[in-house]
């Protein structure tokens, strides 16, 4: 029983990590990171920090991917020639803590499909950089909360192509960065072609491959890992020169391309209304060339809500205990 609960919880942590994007310990980047001054090309390290800022949603006080009717965020995995497996969930992130608060950010996620249905998780990031994140999981089977440690960078989340490092844990200081050029993005972003634009459970109509970024100016950022005997040697990211959205990342090992991750981003407000980094992920597509596995995470715009007046008391264990199976 203990083992099965641990396995279930480990899987849950794995699934949730993609959506727990902002709760992540890092020393150098927080919501105070200024947008680089105009007319100056930032150095590679600064670009990496700006990418981190965008990916961790620091432009928002709070950010929710909620459930709206039957529509939810969905993670779709396909291994080889098998059928697609989907997981639906909602999540709510809160960055709205005072600077002298011991908590820096909190995030709640709730599952709405599959074996994990009714399970919830509360992740706490502390202001003290030396303190590890706190993962509390509500297990509906036993109606109890259990605590878990932070997962490893190289672990795959939810059986997908994406690792914990890809999604949330990798920090700018985990790699050395080099600007390899500036050019236009020439191709559309990837997509699971067999389900492209089709109706899919939870998400409604899936997006088509995103081509609207074609001809946008991007930096080429080469990031070499500082970890020894790592699963990749370096990766090359295509970073928007204005919004710092990383549209594409190519992973190389021994000079060979081994994995691709494409991300479609959307600005939540119009440009003139605020920070150009106030973006959200519309979808992620991943292809592992070693295994042929594909993954797709879709966040429909209609389920996104941000900077609401929800109280901080929502991000507590009490909310986890209220989850209905």
């Amino acid at each position: 029983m203990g083992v099965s609960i641990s396995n279930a919880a480990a899987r849950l942590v794995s699934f949730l990590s993609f959506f727990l994007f902002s709760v992540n310990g890092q020393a150098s980047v927080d919501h105070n990171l200024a947008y680089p001054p105009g007319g100056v090309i930032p150095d590679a390290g600064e670009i990496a920090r700006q990418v981190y800022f965008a990916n961790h949603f620091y432009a928002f006080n709070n950010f929710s991917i909620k459930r709206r009717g039957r529509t939810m965020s969905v993670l779709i995995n396909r291994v080889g020639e098998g059928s697609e497996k989907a997981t639906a969930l909602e999540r709510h992130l809160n960055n709205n803590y005072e600077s002298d608060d011991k908590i820096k950010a909190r995030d709640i996620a709730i599952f709405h499909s599959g074996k994990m249905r009714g399970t919830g998780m509360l992740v706490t990031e502390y202001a003290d950089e030396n303190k590890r994140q706190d993962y509390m999981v509500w297990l509906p089977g036993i109606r109890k909360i259990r605590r878990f440690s932070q997962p490893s960078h190289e672990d795959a989340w939810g059986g997908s192509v994406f690792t914990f490092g890809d999604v949330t844990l990798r920090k700018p200081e985990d790699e050395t960065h080099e600007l390899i050029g500036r050019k236009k993005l020439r191709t559309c972003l990837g997509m699971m072609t067999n389900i492209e634009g089709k109706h899919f459970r939870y998400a409604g109509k899936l997006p088509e491959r995103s081509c609207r970024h074609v001809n946008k100016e991007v930096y080429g950022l080469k990031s070499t890992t500082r970890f020894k005997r790592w699963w990749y040697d370096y990766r090359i990211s295509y970073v928007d020169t204005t919004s710092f959205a990383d549209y594409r990342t190519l992973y190389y090992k021994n000079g060979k391309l081994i994995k691709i991750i494409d991300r479609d981003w959307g600005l939540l407000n119009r440009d003139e209304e605020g920070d150009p980094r106030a973006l959200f992920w519309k979808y992620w597509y991943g292809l592992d060339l070693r295994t042929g596995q594909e993954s797709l995470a879709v966040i429909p715009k209609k389920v996104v809500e941000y900077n609401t007046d929800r109280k901080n008391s929502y991000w507590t264990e009490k909310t986890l205990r209220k989850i209905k199976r």
Partner: protein
Amino acid sequence: MKQTVGIPLIGLVTSLVMGIWQTDSARAADREYLRAVEADAAEFTSNVFELSPDSPWIGSESQGAILSGDQSGGLEGFSTFIESKSPGSYIFYKKLPDEYKMRLHHDYLSTGDLDRIKDDIFRYTKELK
């Protein structure tokens, strides 16, 4: 008896043929995608982008890609895109002044939110009346 055996066999053969066909299609799609990604990446070192214009990953105007001019231009392509995605909205869109079309185009490029663009087309149409 023959019939009951025959029908499942036909179904099985059909499934196998369809399966092989779908797998081949999927692999072909992967190969095309990979070629496109590699051609795009090679440009960082060679300054040359070489990919067949028939590649489905180059993007077309009906997919929202801006293939002519820079991102601030390409209004013609955007008009094609609106016409293909929302013929109803296009009736109103085509009557808007270029200034409004440019604004809509810019919004689409940054947000990717076609529903909002459609709402804005009607809003601008009302404003101009």
